[in-house]
């Protein structure tokens, strides 16, 4: 009897979920304006990407995307409420409408984009699996790692990527299996393996915590694609546009050399794209349903992409990540925003 009942209940639950997901939502933009603040799904704490500081203020490059959207919509980057989400609940929290956008080091993949009913609006950090070794090994490229012992989390995509990489380059490795990422970190620190591999940003964050970070190098080879970016719900393209172009405005801002420091001077620039971006040439904000100074607000309050990067994860922070792939396309990276016109 109890069994049949619980079976019935779970059936009802499942049906309810699928219909609810299929159901349409109202205009997110109107909802956000009405509420007077942006609900942004953040990480529960990831160094440099999104975590509250000692004063309780959220900081990080993912957080800056939320602040940029708030600056665009309200003209005030501080009008954000952060909803900490774990990797397990992040998508449902977005689907249920509890948050307006998710900016939480989330990899853009086909199944998430299509099957989960999300819409990734861009990439704010190109991550990928990398390798870290002790400097004393004298290795400068992953191609020299033949025969090395590697600390690896069992049963992850990281493990498969590693096997593929070594096989493709006709090298062998000795695997030191561990259960979790922090265990891998600990095993590497204790010298149980030569190489520690996980997402490059994770390697940098681990390295920042070592007593002597300069004794370890992250090798230049990146063996998998992990594009991380903000996501919104499917089916509200106007809102997706606002989030997409808020991120793009930060990237274009860097491209055009507009920083939070010089944004006022740039208003009298002769470059027509600068004038369009900063709203001196009117009309572009209205297309998005925003005021004309929306991008000006982003750049003056949050700063351009480079400022955000340097402030939270760049070489002058403990995390010490080089721009690498995340440099602008004209500086040798792949960061590229469509033109602002």
């Amino acid at each position: 009897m109890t069994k049949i009942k619980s079976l019935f209940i779970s059936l009802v639950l499942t049906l309810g979920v699928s219909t609810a997901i299929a159901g349409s939502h109202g205009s997110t933009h109107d909802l956000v304006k009405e509420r007077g603040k942006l609900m942004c799904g953040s990480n529960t704490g990831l160094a440099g990407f999104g975590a509250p500081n000692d004063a309780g203020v959220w900081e990080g490059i993912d957080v800056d995307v939320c602040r940029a959207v708030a600056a665009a919509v309200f003209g005030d980057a501080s009008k954000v409420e952060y909803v900490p989400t774990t990797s397990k609940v992040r998508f449902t929290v977005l689907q249920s409408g509890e948050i307006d956008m998710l900016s939480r080091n989330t990899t853009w993949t086909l199944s998430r984009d299509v099957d989960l009913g999300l819409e990734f609006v861009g990439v704010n950090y190109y991550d990928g699996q990398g390798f870290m070794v002790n400097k004393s090994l004298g290795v400068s490229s992953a191609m020299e790692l033949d025969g090395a012992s590697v600390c690896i989390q069992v049963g992850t995509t990281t493990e498969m990527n590693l096997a593929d990489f070594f096989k493709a380059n006709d090298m062998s490795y000795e695997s030191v299996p561990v259960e979790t990422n922090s265990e891998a970190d600990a095993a590497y620190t204790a010298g149980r393996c030569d190489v520690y591999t996980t997402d490059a940003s994770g390697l940098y964050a681990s390295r920042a915590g070592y007593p002597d970070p300069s004794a370890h190098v992250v090798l230049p080879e990146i063996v998998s694609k992990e594009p991380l970016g903000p996501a919104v719900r499917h089916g509200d393209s106007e809102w997706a546009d606002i989030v997409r172009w808020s991120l793009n405005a930060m990237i274009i801002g860097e491209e055009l050399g507009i920083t939070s420091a010089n944004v006022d001077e740039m208003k009298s620039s002769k470059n027509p794209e600068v004038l369009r971006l900063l709203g001196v040439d009117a009309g572009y904000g209205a297309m998005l349903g925003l005021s004309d100074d929306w991008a000006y607000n982003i750049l003056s309050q949050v700063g351009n992409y480079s400022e955000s990067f340097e402030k939270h994860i760049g070489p002058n922070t403990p995390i010490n990540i080089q721009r690498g792939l995340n440099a602008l396309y004209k500086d040798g990276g792949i960061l590229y925003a469509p033109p602002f016109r």
Partner: protein
Amino acid sequence: MSSTTIQIISRSKYYNWLVKNLFSSWVNTILTVIALIFVYQVGSFFLSWAIFDADFRYNFQGELIIDRGFCSKNIMPGEYGACWAIIFARWNQFMYGLYPIEEAWRVNLIYALLPLAIIGILFDKIPFRRYFIYFTFIFPFLAYFMLYGGPGLSVVGTNKWGGLLVTLFLGVTGIGLAFPLSILLALGRRSKMPIIKSLCVVFIEFIRGVPLITLLFTANVMLPLFLPDGVNPDNLLRALVAVTLFQSAYMAEAIRGGLQAIPRGQVEAAQSLGLSYWQTTRKIVLPQALKIAIPPIVNTCIGLFKDTSLVLIIGLFDLLGIGRAALADMTWTKLYYEVYVFISLVFFIFCFGMSRYSLYLEKKLKTDNS
């Protein structure tokens, strides 16, 4: 009797106890010595790590520690112990979460009033007990108003609550709401009315049959999907509902154990005196049943208090969650031991308090019996 004789007697008593319990045979003597060495080793290591070689607010050079780079152990590895500066720097977050600091006096007030609100229930021999009990019933409304805000006070959304505030909120409210609910469930399960009985049985068995984490996920993730757009019950409230249901099912079973231990004769005697069902239950059965059920009830309460830390899975910043957020901040990363030891200590204080109270209660009620 002169004072020296008392001393001799007490010393010999002490001596006898030692011989009897620790050195009764050579095997026991060896075990005692080994245990003492072990305790000394571990204890002295821990004490020197946690206290004697540790940094509190200042490092060994007398500088105020503002990030982990200032910790003595990071300046001279191997020479120094814990770096408690992270606890000081994040004290407000551990206590209030991300609650606006200029409003934190509201939380402090509630922390201060909480003992007054529960003292009337916990102890029956205090003066003016009646007024304390009145206060207990006013307190939840007062606490809601002070913490959440309302007319005259700015509203602080529960997404800003965190740390000990969330842990206590879930623990105290969960236990407080679950207690009456569990009594009804336990009585319902023993009821002779088939519908009530089967409802209670299904509820208890269903809730007990799933882990708390599943309930939390259901409350957090699935509930909002059924509700129409824009109707989003508060995240913390949903967790509270899950915690309360979970606790009431477990407590109901503990109370049912107590109910079953009451001999039928008690009920029959009460009925023959002409007492109604509710009179019998309230005056005869429940007082005895609850007394028997104290240890298991406190057991579930302690379990629940610790289980509240599971809410970090659904993104609530309870004490553990806020500690992990502190570790994710580049300023303090890798100070794992300091944060986890501190959190364990806080949990220990509350759980040990509950356990001591239950012992006190058992002793007090036992004297009535003998």
